[in-house]
């Protein structure tokens, strides 16, 4: 009898048992791209630039989804609210946790900080490459490889080169710092998921992967 009952009794304010595919796709796409770009390949390489553009597309898609997606993916479901976030962390420490229909306030704040940092990283990355698309980078690399060094000259010929190098230097600094911040945030995010899963006695990872397996 219990088997027949479980389907009807859905807690009203619980996060979804399975996030929608766009949320999952953008989440893991960004996570993977950031990890690869930060830890494995070096800046300026074709792969690095391509992944950067991929992250930009994923970020844009997620932001569009935040305006047009289903209710729990929309910004209105998890407004940035530092006060509520602090209150939630306090509840977490005292062991009394509440359920939220979407991200909890602390997680929501984390998401917004993530997106802002990602925007900074991609924007400074664009400044560093001069806005070159992966196709242009590939073409330039191919030209240089075939012995045509003129592709390299273009960058240094401008008249305001002093100002340009200063800007590039700043962009590089910001790019590095923001990228490290991303890794720090990712670690914090994973720690948060572990703590929250313990406190709620619920697997918070499954909804972001394939959902609960039902028998």
């Amino acid at each position: 009898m219990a088997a027949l009952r479980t389907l009807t009794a859905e807690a009203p304010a619980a996060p979804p048992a399975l996030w929608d595919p766009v949320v999952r796709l953008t989440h893991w796409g960004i996570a993977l791209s950031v990890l690869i770009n930060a830890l494995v390949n070096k800046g300026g390489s074709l792969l690095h630039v391509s992944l950067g553009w991929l992250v930009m597309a994923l970020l844009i898609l997620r932001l569009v989804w935040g305006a047009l997606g289903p209710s729990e993916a929309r910004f209105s479901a998890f407004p940035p609210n530092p006060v509520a976030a602090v209150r939630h962390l306090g509840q977490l420490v005292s062991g009394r946790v509440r359920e939220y229909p979407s991200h909890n306030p602390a997680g929501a704040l984390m998401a917004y900080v993530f997106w802002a940092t990602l925007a900074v990283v991609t924007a400074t990355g664009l400044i560093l490459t001069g806005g070159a698309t992966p196709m242009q980078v590939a073409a330039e690399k191919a030209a240089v490889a075939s012995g045509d060094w003129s592709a390299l000259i273009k960058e240094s010929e401008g008249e305001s080169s002093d100002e340009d190098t200063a800007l590039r230097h700043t962009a590089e600094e910001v790019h590095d710092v923001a990228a490290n911040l991303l890794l720090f945030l990712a670690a914090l995010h994973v720690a948060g998921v572990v703590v929250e899963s313990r406190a709620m006695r619920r697997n918070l990872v499954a909804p972001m992967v394939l959902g609960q397996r039902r028998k």
Partner: protein
Amino acid sequence: MTAGPDLRTAGRRQTAALSVFLLVQTLGTVFFVGDVIGDLRKDPASMHFAFEAIVTAALVLGILFGSFALRRTIELLRAQDQALAVARGALSDVIERQFQSWAFTPAERDVGLLALKGLDVAEIAELRGAAQGTVRAQLTRIYSKAGVSGRAQFAAFFVEDLLGQGVTAS
């Protein structure tokens, strides 16, 4: 019960495919816009600009409409899922109430439900860890309490309810 998970996986596959498509679309748009901006900076007086602006607008609109359509699909799937769950819950409520009005014992309720789900005597006995004779005796009592001739009529009692010709319990 078999139709539920199949429907769900089909729906999941469909929305997953649409999401991947949406991502590819966004990626294409971002690359295209990047290329257009690059072209403009190289040659601001480009005659292509008007054409490229239209393509850009079309691509952006495609993403917006695609997102909207995907959201509608997801919401529709959820609504169907919920309707199915409500229907199941309603049926189980009807069965529960009927069992009560027949004054089934807890054991008879369990056996009756398993019988409704289509399990045969041997399977029910195994599930409940009881002898087959016990289950057979329980089923006989269930049929007599319900005033039906056997399993077929017992199941038909609730199917008839579903078909909308309410059967009043005596």
